[in-house]
Every structure is written in C-alpha cells, then in structure tokens.
C-alpha cells in the first residue's frame, strides 16, 4: 500500500514536472511533428514585443506551427546568446531574433545556421552573414516620407514647421531628416522648415525647446518630433502655451506615451509601424524559409491574410508606417 502511494506521488510529480517543462515536444522526431519556430524579443516584459508576439501567435495558429517565445527578462545580450544555444540543442526549425547587440549575437546565430536552422532577424538586425533575412519594419525613406506627408496633410499648401530631433549627430535621425527634406523639396516646396532643435532624447528638454520655438516663430503651424520622448514633450509645451489646435504636433513615437495628447487634440498623429504585423510577418517568413518556399533572391513575399511584401536584397520590408490618431489609438497598448 505504502509502495503504491509512493509510486502514485512520484508519478504525479513526474507528470507535474512534464507540464511545467516549456518544451513538451522534446521526444524523438516523429514524421508528423509540427514545425517549431523560436521567437526572441529584446526583452520579454517590453510592451512593444508583447504586441509583436500577438501577431506572431496569430500567424503560428494559422500555419499550425509550434511557437516558442522566450527572451531575457531585461535587455541582455549574454542571456540572448544562452537562449539561442538552448534552441540549437533543442533542434528548432527556425529562429527569429530581435538583436540587442549586433556583434554579440552574430556568433551564436552563425552556429545555429551551421546546424541547418533557418535564422531571421526582425526589429533590429544582426551581422548580415549570420542570418538569412531581416524583417525590416521601416526604412528611413518610409519614415521620412510618411512624416512629411502627414505634416503636409495637416498644414495645407503653405506654412512653417519646425523639427525636434534627439541630437544633431544621431545617424538614423539625420537619415530620416534627409528623407523628410527630399520629400518636402519635391512635393511641398511651399512648406518651410524654420528650425531644427535637439532635445538630447529627453522629454523635459523637448518641452523647453518647443516653448522657445513657438515664441520665436509666431507663425509656426506644426512641430514634428522625430525622437519618441520629444512627441509628448512638445505636446505638453503646446498645451501650456494655450496653442492647442493652432500649433499641431506630430511625430515618431509610441501610442501609450501620446494617448492623452491625441485625445485632447494637442497631438494630431503619431507614426510607427504596426507591431502586430511585424510579429505576424516574421513568423510567416520564418515558416516559408524553413519549408523552402522562401529563398534568397526572392522579390516579393506573401504573408497570410495581410498581403504581399516587397523584398529589397535580404530585407523583407514591412512597408509604410502606420499612423496612430485619436480614433484608433485605443486599440493599441504599447
């Protein structure tokens, strides 16, 4: 009797242990085994990546693949490497990673590729030889053109606007700005950029800068904030100056940080990519790569229900950024 009880308890423990294991399908490979795709965020708790995962879950469900979602609790390149090593041991079919550190992760990814695992990066890239494709959420041109088009839509045919950037030396912002200027010169020559101010990527400094910009440029119609903390900073300045509606705010930022100002009508629109689509496209691309449907040199790629995507070289482009405004911002939480 005693023996039976002990066996039963041991059995239950073993069963509980099995349930707890994150990877139930670790037994010998059967021919009917589902494809396994491993998706890694920069950090697990980050709302941005949780939103990516939502789209990834949907794609995994549609494709009937096993999706493993794991990553560091905090952005930690070393931990990312450890997890990839585990995935190699586990023998997953494809790995999709948002890289915290380009150099740090590339060695582990090369090793995975050497073992025949298909590797994709999304959100932020690794060294190009360590992965097959990069799902690029936004090109500099996409961002620059979208911002300028949105500004023009709000300003009408002529008027003055100012840009708040993070710093005058940030490479990505300068690239966006070049594209903003190119779009302006070609399509909206009567719109005038009167000032460019840096805010050191700080919300508080952006608020001070925007206050001075409005005082110095009484005809200012719009402030374009191209680093994320500057959007709410500029909006608060406009609100405090009592110029809501008179000076419009747009920018590149996160929906949650701007929800309040979008609803109050201070900020007109915030531009970013749809993170759910990014996750969705990444899983579709990883799946097609693993089953051989997607090969190097392809020019387009069809991802389930959301349509066709352009491929430039080894970059799969998510396409035009998404415009968040007061009508749709409540659907997003990141």
């Amino acid at each position, binding site marked *: 009797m005693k023996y039976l009880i002990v066996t039963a308890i041991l059995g239950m423990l073993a069963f509980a242990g099995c349930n707890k294991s994150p990877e139930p399908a670790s037994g010998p490979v059967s021919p009917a085994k589902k494809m396994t795709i491993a998706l890694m965020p920069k950090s697990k708790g980050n709302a941005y990546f949780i939103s990516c995962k939502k789209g990834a879950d949907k794609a995994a469900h549609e494709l009937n693949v096993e999706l493993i979602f794991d990553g560091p609790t905090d952005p930690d390149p070393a931990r990312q490497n450890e997890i990839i090593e585990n995935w190699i041991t586990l023998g997953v079919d494809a790995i999709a990673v948002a890289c915290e550190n380009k150099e740090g992760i590339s060695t582990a990814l090369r090793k995975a590729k050497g073992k025949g695992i298909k590797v994709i990066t999304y959100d932020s890239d690794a060294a190009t030889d360590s992965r097959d494709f990069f799902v690029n959420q936004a090109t500099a041109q996409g961002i620059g053109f979208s911002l300028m088009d949105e500004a023009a839509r709000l300003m009408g045919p002529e008027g003055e606007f100012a840009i708040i950037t993070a710093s005058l030396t940030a490479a990505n912002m300068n690239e966006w700005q070049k594209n903003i200027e190119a779009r302006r010169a070609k399509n909206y020559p009567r719109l005038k950029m009167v000032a460019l101010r840096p805010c050191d990527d700080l*919300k508080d400094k952006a608020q001070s800068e925007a206050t*001075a910009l409005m005082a110095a440029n009484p005809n200012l119609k719009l402030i374009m904030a191209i680093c994320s903390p500057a959007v709410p900073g500029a909006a608060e300045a406009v609100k405090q100056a009592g110029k809501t509606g008179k000076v419009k705010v747009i920018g590149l930022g996160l929906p949650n940080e701007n929800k309040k100002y979008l609803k109050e009508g201070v900020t007109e629109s915030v531009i970013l990519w749809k993170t759910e689509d990014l996750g969705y496209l990444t899983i579709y691309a990883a799946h097609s790569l693993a089953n051989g449907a997607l090969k190097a040199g392809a020019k387009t790629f069809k991802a389930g229900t959301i349509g066709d995507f352009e491929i430039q070289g080894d970059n799969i482009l998510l396409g035009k950024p998404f415009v968040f405004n007061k009508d749709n911002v409540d659907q997003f939480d990141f």
Partner: protein
Amino acid sequence: MKASKTIKNASRFSREITLGIGLLIILATLAVVAPGFYQAQPLLSLLTREAPSLIVACGMAWVIICRQIDISVGSQFGLCSVCAGLLAGMHWPIALVGICAMALGALLGWVNGFLVAGLRLPSIVVTLATMVTLREGLRWKRQGEFVTLPDTVQWFGFSQQQGQVTIIVVSLLVLIILAVTARHLSLARDIYAVGSDAEAARLAGIPALRITCFVFVLLGALTGLAAILNMAQAPQVDPKTGTGLELKAIAAVVVGGVSISGGRGSLWGVFLGLLLLACISPALTHLHVEAYWERAIHGGIILIAVAGDRFKQGKENS
C-alpha cells in the same frame, strides 16, 4: 577708510557684477533684435523650467565650496522623479510624496558622503560610480517606460499659472534661505573653512568629515525637492529625466564664481550664472542661430569664468 571698504565690497561682488552686466547685454540685445523673446507665457515657462535646476545648483554650490564635487545629481534626480511618480501614482498625498523624494535624495547623498568622508575616497570617482549605477539601474528597471501621473499631480492641483508661480517662488525661497545662512550661520562658515583647507579646519576643531558628508546629504535632499518641482510640470515622468543635469549645475556654479578649488563663492553668483546659461538656448532659437553653437557658447562661457578665476587669484597672491 570708507572708500576702501566700498572698493573691497565691489571686489567681493566683482563676479556678480560682471555676470549682471553680461546678462543685461544679452537681454538688451534680445530686446532689440528679437523682441518676441519678451512674451509673458514663454518667459514664465522658461523660469518655471529652470527652477528645479536652480535648486540643484544651490546644493551643488555648497558641495563645491566644500572642495568636493557630485556628478551623480542627474541620476539622483532621475531616481527621485521616478520613485515620486510611482508613489503619486498610488495616490499618496503630494506633500508626503515630496517628503519621501527629499528623504530618498538625502539617503543617496549620504551614500556619496559616507564613501567620500568615511572611506576617504575621491568624490569625483565615487559620484561617477553612483551616477552610472543609478542611471543604469533605472534603465534596467523601467526600460525607458514613462511613469504616468494622476491628473491631480500636475501644478499640485492648482491652475497652470498658480502652479508655475508656486514653483518659481519655492525655488527662490530655497536660494534666499541658503544665501542668507551663508552669511550668518556658523555651519556655513565651517563649510567655507573646510573647503579652503580641510586640515587647518580640523585642527581648529571643525568636524571636517561630518561637514563633508553633510554637504552631500544637503545636495541630495535639494535634488529630491527639485525632482518634485519638475514632476509637477507635466503629466508623465521620463525615466531619463535629469540626464546632463550635473553639467548644468556645475556650469552654473563655476560661472557663478564659486572657486572649483573650494572655499569661496556666493549663491547670488550661482543664481546669475544659471540665468545667463539658461538664456542662451532660447536666445539662439529666437535669433535663428543653428543649434550647433549652443554647446560651444556654453563651453566658452565656462572657460572665460574659470580663466577669470585664475587671473583674479593670481593678482591677489602677487
């Protein structure tokens, strides 16, 4: 006799006078070239935005007078802001939140003070370490996510204008209290003595180490207060807030005529130094000068101030 006293007074306030003239020149130039600078709302807003920096600069002045330095104030400011924001988010009364922020600041200051005075470590190294540790800790914990505040926190529940005036008045009160005690409190005289010559001060019976620790605690507590005054100006707290604040405060102190080698300087000079530096950025925006020049001008002003200091000391010593 009387004339010589006047001259002596004039020389004691020479930095304040130079700064005052410099500030007047800038303001007069702006009045002619860019009269748009003189609008009530943007000016009130500028002063409100600079009020927290003034409080931190006052605390920093005491640390530098004591011949120490604290480059971790920006990180302390960030940590106090985020903690205060989280407490306010739990609907703690704002006065209690303020006390907690000041207590936290004082605690952080005490850690610096203990390491510097207790373990005799150089303050620049200690505060460099705490600066990086606190800032990275904050980044790790918040991952850049803003803290959203309840609606009642902004302007302490007053109207915008009342709130702005309150913030300016509080910062000026801190300045006046600290500047007046500098002349009349024996503790203040002890700080000057320790800053001039710590060994001589110790031999004279002044508890030099305790005083050194105290200036760090004072700066920390003032930084906590400044964080609250800054938090009340927006509905969200950016966890990166305070980045670069140490440079701003130290620049104001040095430009204000406090000797970087300790023992001399006044808070009135620091006040004028901060006003002068704070004017530069909006002035450039009004004059439509490219932002590239801003840092160069700041640097130039600091260099002139330090060089002026050296020149003055050289003349007195000869």
